[in-house]
């Protein structure tokens, strides 16, 4: 033991200093978050003031006329996230059940690694891949197919474009599947072996065992995982900006081009000035509020699940 350790007094003072310093680092997080809200809201305030409630209820977006209604973008964000969830949740449940219940030992590692790898790929690479590979190969044909055979429903009305809500939703689904999968997997792994054996002992088939022992136990966790995936999908920017088609019009059909909140910020920011920038910051504030609500709900659910 170094002799300096034994000096009294110095240690005591250093101790409380260290504690205060560490505490300050923690408080810094709170301060940054608070300042984030204040600074952005403050910048957007003039636009909130001049547009009033029509900022979120109008879909009239023409910066040259000073009209900033972001309803079309809010709609775009919600519809692309919904499409992503519809595709990603069943896939994630399937993959996580495979990893916990079905997979032979040899496959568990590689499949798990592959899913983690999908989570590590940056969103700009998804965007690049989506635009140049997935668009001609799958998105455009699939959009054409939907418009041709289901076009009588307003939701799928043509003329179809691969660069659309649908295209952005598909790429989002690929991006959030690994997130939902890894959380669901953790949840399913906490189901006690005794529950499974009990179900088998009652004569259940494998699926009935999953239905009645695994899934009910993980319900809160599955909902929480889905909401975390949703939170990620709402805020995803670059891949969506490349694939959503960049149209400021609100279109009910999912195979038509549109815009999401994050995408419009990324795409219009570089040529925006004055009130246009303030309006984009305002969209950011709305997006922030939306994701915070979703995330807090998800955390509350996951926490409740962890405690139970």
């Amino acid at each position, binding site marked *: 033991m170094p002799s300096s350790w034994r000096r009294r007094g110095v240690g005591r003072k250093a101790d409380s200093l260290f504690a205060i310093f560490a505490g300050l680092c*923690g408080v810094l997080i709170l301060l940054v978050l608070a300042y984030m809200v204040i600074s952005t809201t403050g*910048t957007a305030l003039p636009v909130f003031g001049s547009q009033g409630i029509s900022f979120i209820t109008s879909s009239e977006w023409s910066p040259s006329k000073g009209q900033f209604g972001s309803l079309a973008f809010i709609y775009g964000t919600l519809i692309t996230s919904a499409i992503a969830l519809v595709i990603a949740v069943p896939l994630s449940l*399937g*993959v996580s059940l495979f990893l916990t219940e079905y997979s032979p030992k040899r496959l568990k590692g590689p499949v798990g690694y592959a899913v983690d790898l999908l989570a590590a790929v*940056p969103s700009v*690479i998804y965007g690049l891949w989506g635009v140049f590979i997935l668009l001609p190969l799958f998105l455009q044909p699939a959009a054409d197919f939907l418009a041709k055979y289901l076009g009588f429903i307003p939701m799928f009305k043509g003329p179809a474009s691969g660069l659309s809500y649908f295209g952005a939703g598909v790429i989002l689904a690929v991006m959030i599947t690994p997130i939902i999968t890894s959380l669901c997997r953790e949840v399913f792994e906490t189901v006690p072996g005794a529950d499974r054996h009990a179900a088998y002992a009652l004569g259940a088939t494998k699926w009935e065992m999953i239905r009645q022992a695994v899934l009910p136990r993980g319900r809160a966790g599955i909902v929480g995982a889905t909401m975390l995936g949703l939170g990620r999908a709402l805020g995803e920017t670059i891949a969506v900006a*490349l694939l959503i088609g960049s149209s400021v019009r609100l279109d009910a059909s999912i195979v038509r081009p549109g815009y999401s909140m994050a995408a419009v910020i*990324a795409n219009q920011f570089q040529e925006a000035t004055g009130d246009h920038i303030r309006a984009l910051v305002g969209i950011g504030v709305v997006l922030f509020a939306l994701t915070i609500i979703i995330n807090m709900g998800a955390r509350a659910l996951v926490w409740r699940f962890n405690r139970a």
Partner: protein
Amino acid sequence: MEVQQGVSETLETTCAATRVEERWAGGRVGRGASLKDCRPTRRRIWRNRRNTALVVLAVGLTMIPVVMILYQITAKGITTMDWEFLTSSMPFSFRREGGGFLNGLVGTAIMVGLASAVSIPLGVLAAVYLVEYGKKNWLAKLIRFFSDVMTGVPSVFVGLFVYTALVIQFGFGALMGAASLAIIMMPIIVRSTEEMLKLVPNELKDASYALGAAKWQTIVKVILPSAAPGITTGVMLAVARAAGETAPLILTALGSYQLTGKLWGEPMSALTLAIFDGARNPFAAGQARAWAGALELLIIVLVFTMVARVVVSRSRISR
């Protein structure tokens, strides 16, 4: 009392079991049939097989993008990837062939480096506060909750924040880009470091205190070193995440064609920004560079992710 409760529980379980059996065996058990009639009905067997097939199908569908992305990024990137690409900056027109993303690579390195230099010490110290000092008091709970919230904040919003707080006054630059990346990295580091510090056994701390060490000495010389591999893992993942961020950099570093070392007053490029520009432009030469850049970025991100995994598997303290 307890026995009674136990009996009633058993009774309940038996009843539940009977109800379940009735359903599973297609109602035959209820009519007093023998045990061998309890074998699954054809419909149950079919449903079991169908769902197994669906699960396998889901895995197959999920593996398609993994294989496609890995293969196509490699195949398309490798054709443009050469020494020139790694060591020269972008030409001033997307139409021109040749040149590379050195400006982006340097920009990413500078900004991620600066962001790490700030967010790693701050994040680790905040985690130390949570585990060793705050524990379960209101402040620690608040910090824990809001750093969770912060991991879910869209990165584009972080960019907007830095734009309104710094860029409007000081202009675009590497420092502003680094600030946004630091804000993204910090909550990730806090939460992962906290998990690792919790795993340090109490015996180790007690031994240190028994030797007469003060609390800060115990933290610096015992707790942090023994949790180091786990902390490194979290840090690596945060670095990988920061290196792959694009949206906040559009609003803070802006991007540039030139190689620059100036930290402020001048826009700076990043690998992700260069790829984004390449993906948006209609010229073959620019797109080819974007693919090579994607390969470069993917390798960097995957190396960090893999190193993180290796480090954690070598750690002596684990879950």
